[in-house]
């Protein structure tokens, strides 16, 4: 399956949904053809994953236009678009959706952006527009437990984290299989 993962943030950005998207791409890559579309200058590489990065240093309007164009191009090629929320992705999706009619899944992983949207009319409208006819993916993301010196390796927490990923991947696969 050809999967397009759209995200506003991606490592070396540190805030969510950056680490989630990278981890997901890494785990999906052995089984699918994965492309990540993000903003960034020098995104971290993942073996077997194609990364399309729109330079964030360009002025806002220009980078939104570039992202929208790239989204339309990549979405055409993909079977499924799986996106993370955030206005810098929602606006391009709302625009691209006029031309591209392919399955769209969304995860509201950036809770701060989602909460902000619920308080601001324009942002709320944008989110609603992007989400229309999108299937939502419920995935409470567990942050990877840190391995710290002077403390025993957190084996149990790492196992829980791994288990949550397996469950999440199964859930995603089921959703994707139904398109």
């Amino acid at each position, binding site marked *: 399956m050809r999967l397009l993962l759209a995200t506003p943030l991606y*490592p*070396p*950005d*540190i*805030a969510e949904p950056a680490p989630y998207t990278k981890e997901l791409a890494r785990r999906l890559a052995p089984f699918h053809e994965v492309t990540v579309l993000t*903003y*960034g*200058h*020098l995104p*971290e590489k993942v073996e077997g994953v194609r990364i399309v990065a729109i330079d*964030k*240093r*360009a*002025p*806002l309007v220009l*980078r939104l236009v570039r992202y929208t164009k790239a989204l339309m191009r990549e979405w055409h090629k993909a079977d499924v678009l799986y996106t993370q929320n955030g206005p810098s992705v929602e606006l391009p999706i709302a625009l691209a959706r006029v031309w591209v009619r392919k399955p769209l899944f969304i995860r509201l992983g950036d809770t701060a952006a989602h909460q902000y949207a619920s308080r601001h009319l324009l942002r709320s409208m944008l989110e609603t527009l992007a989400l229309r006819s999108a299937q939502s993916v419920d995935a409470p993301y567990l942050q*990877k437990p*840190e*391995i*710290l*010196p*002077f403390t025993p390796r957190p084996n149990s927490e790492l196992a829980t984290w791994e288990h949550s990923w397996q469950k999440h991947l199964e859930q995603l696969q089921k959703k994707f299989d139904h398109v």
Partner: protein
Amino acid sequence: MSDLTPLKNTLTSLGFTLEAEQPHLLGERHLTRPLGGGHKWLLLGRNVQGQRVVIKASNEPMGVAEIVRERECRRVLHVIYFAYGVFLSPKEILFTTKDGYTVLVTEFVEAKPFLERPLEEQFTLALKAFKAQESAHATTSSHVRLIRGTFDELHATDYLKKINTYAHEVVPHATFKDASDFLSQHQEVIEQYCNFLTHWDLTPQNMRVVGDSIYLLDHSSLHFGNKYEGWARFINFMTLYNPLLAHALVQYVRDNRTPEESLALKCMRLYRLGELVRYYVGWLEHTEGNLRKLAQIRIIFWDTVLQAVLHDAEVPGETIEHYKKTRDTLRSEEEKKRQVNLH
């Protein structure tokens, strides 16, 4: 600027008295100003309520510029909307110009010396400080607009240019051409982790820990650059003062971050060690007697550390102990006094 009396009178008229002991006027302190940097007084005093304060003052244009810049850095630091972490800085009590002096007075943050804390606590605190800085990542044009003009920005090309200059300048006292070549080979990795807030001089003397809160001092040393630059300075420092902590921090990056990040840390450690060697080579021109000998042994020691980092080796404990012993015999009594509780 050796006579403190006129400034003392100005401070008295502003309601501040100086403490009898002024650790920042002792020993090698006069040599620690950055080359090309301005001259400013760094003093400890008390206000009329008896509250301990830190006073920075200068009547030289470059020193004044540094004080003004530090104040502006602190102001902007608190309005960086794209940072996820919280930055604490000592409260400003007074900023004024009087009798030709620009004076900045901030509260003195009392804290237990960092190195007196248990090793695990040192690790936790250092990591917290690094993470707070990393949370400020200037990636978009509007972020850059906010910081530009206040904070310096360093990119891979700047680091490379500097390390090449240092490598050229230190010959024949040391040679780290291999280090400079290593940085050239990994230019993209260095750039990948640029645009993060980082403290050029992140050592325990520029941190105060009160409870769970970390105060960052010397805001003029903050800039946007490779996120491991501050880590590198701290780890290099700890190679001498607490090798176990240095090792733990390097291991943390290996265990929890990408291989590219470990590489970026190594590059930054090499860069900062090159800078340190070059700094002490700069001392050779201005010093004589024991101070000159001190500079010489420091060049040798830090060049040894640089070679060890380059080859992913540990610096032998005996080398560190031998260096410390020799350094202490060469240090003046004043400098030994200044060093007490400094870190």
